């Protein structure tokens, strides 16, 4: 326990962080270890290059987008707080925890999970997934397996299906609607502690 506390103490504002993200001290320590491992030069923040060093991530078709999601616009670095906050999106929803009426929506809520996914598509941050943006993601995910025409027809169809206001793009609201039947809590969560 002593080592746990000492590690925790090294992290500034750890109480606030735990409050915001819902991570337990054990989670935080684990993530902090990971953070330090990624931050090879010990600068206290991570650059996109640090993420690029994760070799499994290089194989991930949309890995670069996910890396991009860690960096808020205009920033080249991410500190531990932001790092944990991003990861907190993927914490499973805890059903047992009593809901405090006045507390803000937790980071791992359904709509926040969806927002995270949405912004991976919406690279130009205009609040809409355009056909081009969708095509890019599809191309990354499908790779060389399909022809460009096939990609386009899939993209067209996808937009057509989700597009409710006929603007040829998927807004967040439409995105949410199209995934209404999906158990997002399940599909967008990972277990952080084993």
């Amino acid at each position, binding site marked *: 326990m002593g080592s746990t506390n000492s590690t925790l103490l090294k992290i500034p504002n750890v109480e606030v962080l735990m409050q915001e993200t819902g991570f337990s001290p054990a989670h935080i320590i684990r993530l902090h270890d990971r953070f330090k491992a990624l931050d090879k030069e010990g600068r206290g923040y991570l650059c996109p290059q640090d993420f690029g060093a994760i070799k499994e991530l290089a194989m991930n078709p949309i890995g670069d987008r996910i890396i991009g999601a860690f960096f808020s616009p205009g920033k080249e670095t991410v500190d531990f707080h932001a790092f944990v906050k991003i*990861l907190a999106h993927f914490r499973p929803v805890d059903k047992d925890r009593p809901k405090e009426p006045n507390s803000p929506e937790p980071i791992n809520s359904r709509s926040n999970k969806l927002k995270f996914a949405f912004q991976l598509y919406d690279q130009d941050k205009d609040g809409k997934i355009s056909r081009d943006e969708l095509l890019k993601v599809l191309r990354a995910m*499908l790779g060389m397996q399909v022809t460009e025409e096939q990609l386009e027809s899939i993209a067209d169809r*996808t937009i057509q299906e989700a597009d409710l206001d006929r603007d040829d793009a998927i807004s967040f609201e439409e995105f949410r609607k199209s995934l209404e039947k999906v158990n997002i809590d399940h599909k967008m969560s990972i277990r*952080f502690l084993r």
Partner: protein
Amino acid sequence: MRGLSLLLFITVASDATTDLYVTGASVPPELGVSAAPAVTSSVASRYVPEEYGHPGIALARSAEEPAAPSTEDGESSHHHGGGYKIVQWEWSYVQTPYIIASWLLVASVAKILFHFSQRFTTAVPESCMLILLGLVLGAVVLIASKKQPYQLDPGLFFLFLLPTIVGDAGYFMPARLFFDNLGAILMYAVVGTLWNAFCTGFCLYGVKMAGAIDEKVNAGLMEFLLFGALISAVDPVAVIAVFEEVHVNETLFIIVFGESLVNDAVTVVLYKVYISFVEVGPGNVHTADYFKGIASFLIVSIGGTLVGLIFAVILAFVTRFTKKVRIIEPLFVFLLVYLAYLTAELFSLSAILSMTFCGIGCNKYVEANISQKSRTTVKYTMKTLASIAETIIFIFLGISAVDKSKWAWDTGLVVSTLIFILVFRAIGVVGQTWFLNWFRLVPLDKIDQVVMSYGGLRGAVAFALVVLLDKEQVKAKDYFVATTIVVVFFTVMFQGLTIKPLVKWLKVPRSTNRKPTINEEIHERAFDHILTAVEDIAGLNGYHHWRDKWEQFDKNYLSKLLLRKSVYHKSELWEAYQKINIRDAISVIDQGGNVLTSARLSLPSMASRTSFPEVTNVTNYLRENGSGVCLDLQVIDTVPGAKIEEELETHHVLAGNLYKPRKRYQSHYSRHFMTVGEKERQDREIFQRNMRNRLESFKSTRYKRHKKDRSQKKRKGSDAKEQDINDKPRRNVSWQDKDPVVVPVAPEDDKHDPSEPDKDDDVGITFVARKAPETPKERPKSVPAALDVCQSPVAAPPSPTCGEKNLPWKSGVGSLPPCVSVEATKIIPIDLQQAWNQSISSLESLASPPAPPEPQHPRVSALSRLGGPLRTPVNGKSGGGAGSGSNTGSPSSGQFKFPTGKEEEEEGALSQQQQEMQPLMSSLRPPPPPPPPPAAQSAGKRRNPCVYLRSLVTVPPSGAELQSRKPTQL
């Protein structure tokens, strides 16, 4: 005991199953009486020797020596009178297959009868009914023959009945779901079963010590542990049978179902270990033997799994090379999956595990490799076999229970076993779930636990195992048999009956059975990638990490090895996309036809639609149209090879018919068929449709007879002759043309109504029967409408789908958008996928440089020659003006939502114009020609429509005809 069985028999017979009794009773006495003399107690042992003995004897006897004293006993060889017998009674020759076939028949008929009453079957699970029926049959046989010749024979059960069910379960196991919950499944299967087995065994022994079980039950600790082992395993057959009807959510189902399959390894090992312990005697068991037992468990389970996976690889690899011999593809699947089972049995490994993993492992590759039709064949054959095997198992369970010589009753044993089973199951589930929920992403809540505890059904596996016991070694076998029967009946019947209300009462989330949309497909794939990436970033080697690793491995090595090259390069997402498109296409075609009909009902000239076929049979549709003419103007440019011509035509049918409903169902339908901006393409499409309809209505009037001849083999020779006279090739007729012709005939149909049942292809004529007679002038106007109404050929040759409907067993079809009829959804996988692929690619080709009007010229000119100078302007206007075709030329066309308002106006105006034109056009038709040739009249009333039609249109000079046909002869 007879009193008991009679009582059962009477109560059941007086039940809703009175009719069943009648059917059942008519067969079994005969079987029982005739089979009894030759029969030993075991079914299998009877089959084997007699099968080889009889044929030869029977043949020899019937050949030359009827008076020879046959070695046969009994009634079958009663023809000793000498001389040649015209009719011989060869019962002994056909006995075995005859009995088997009769049993299958009884079982199948019983299923039909169960499903007569919808309300009854929703309340009572089929397995209950089958057991009851078995009890009845068993009682009847017992009364008739004073002996019970039929029993669930372990050999028959383990070698034939169980594999069919497990094979089906494994092959169609939702792999992703299974592996997502693998931890829980393994936990329940291994720990849970061990817990149940030991606790039940020890506690029964304790009860015996306490004196609650009669002294006659001569069993020690080892015997009770053995009994505990065989009675504790959840049974796959019973679980499938009951849970299929309950429709709990998929996670719950997969856990209980997976457990029932995987626990086989535990059961097998425990059973064998205890048997050997019982054999050597409890005193001689050394500590080493326990470790041997554990080692045996590992070998049996891992070995069984490996055998299954090896066969899965072999199977997938073999199907890579079956391109030229598609017809035996399904056979490979059955054979290798079955061989996986037998091989595991051969090495006394867990056969159920082997078969399950063979099915799970090969499914992905095999399904990708084999043809669409083979897929369907595999699916329905497996389901049929599994369904019938399940039926037989439950019936035999019922029958076996009646055999009083096999069992001995002890109330203490029965009651305490029942209590222990229920209690320990519940305790086990709660304890394990508590442990598992530490690790599970989605914890199993209390309701889930209740259902899982209650769903721990025991079944035929336990019964077969207990029957297998050796009476010499296990003295209390008869008591165990009785207890097992009671336990099985209690779990299957009482729990099976009450689990549905329980699930409803607890509000357990049900399965939705909804197909994912393309958005869900895409986004869920993206989620998988996201989660993998996040796990990598967070440095967790979690589930997604390993799944991703596996997928990489699969993609890089396994798929390369096991998939055909052509398949390997296809993307799963693309496949999913195509499937969704097909589904939509079906729904649009299916629904579109009907909806349009209702829209057009307002048309005064419209035929009554009341007799319009309720379900559009797309299979027939495609089949019919396979050799039809190809009227699509685009294709004329491309000049496809003869081979793909059929597919192209299929596509054009789809494309043509999809066009219009899409307007209506924009939300349902894919934009890529026509993007908003591409007005040109749209215009062309409209024009083409328009043209096609006109041409076809025209052509059809001329080619009516040939089409009929082509589509129906039942035609008489006189028809064919007539066709020869006219010298018109079949392919000139498209699928559509029969319908347009059919409608205008309305006024005449009274005449040929009686003859209609004879001919398949003219059924459609009936639907105009109620229509008030029209004047010939109005008719042309109704023709286009009719084109839309009768999109499907009216001919309905028996299609495989009819039979499919009767398969209650896991139809697996899933539900589709509400507008799709069940019939249609079942057809998709069979015929449409390829067609749809074609349609997509061809539709994409639509986007290529537009076809200049030139290709149309031959037809237009032919038409103008036919219809006179005035007709050409009409065509020109409707086509070039991007207006509605004749298909949309009705008042209802205003309802179609065109993307731009301008177009809508345009269309409205044009359709107006068109309607004005139509009387003109009709009046252009030449006056009734000379009366039809006498041959036509002599051919009977059935050809009246064409006779009449021919009277409407003059047959043009053959030269013009040929020219008009030219573009279609590709």
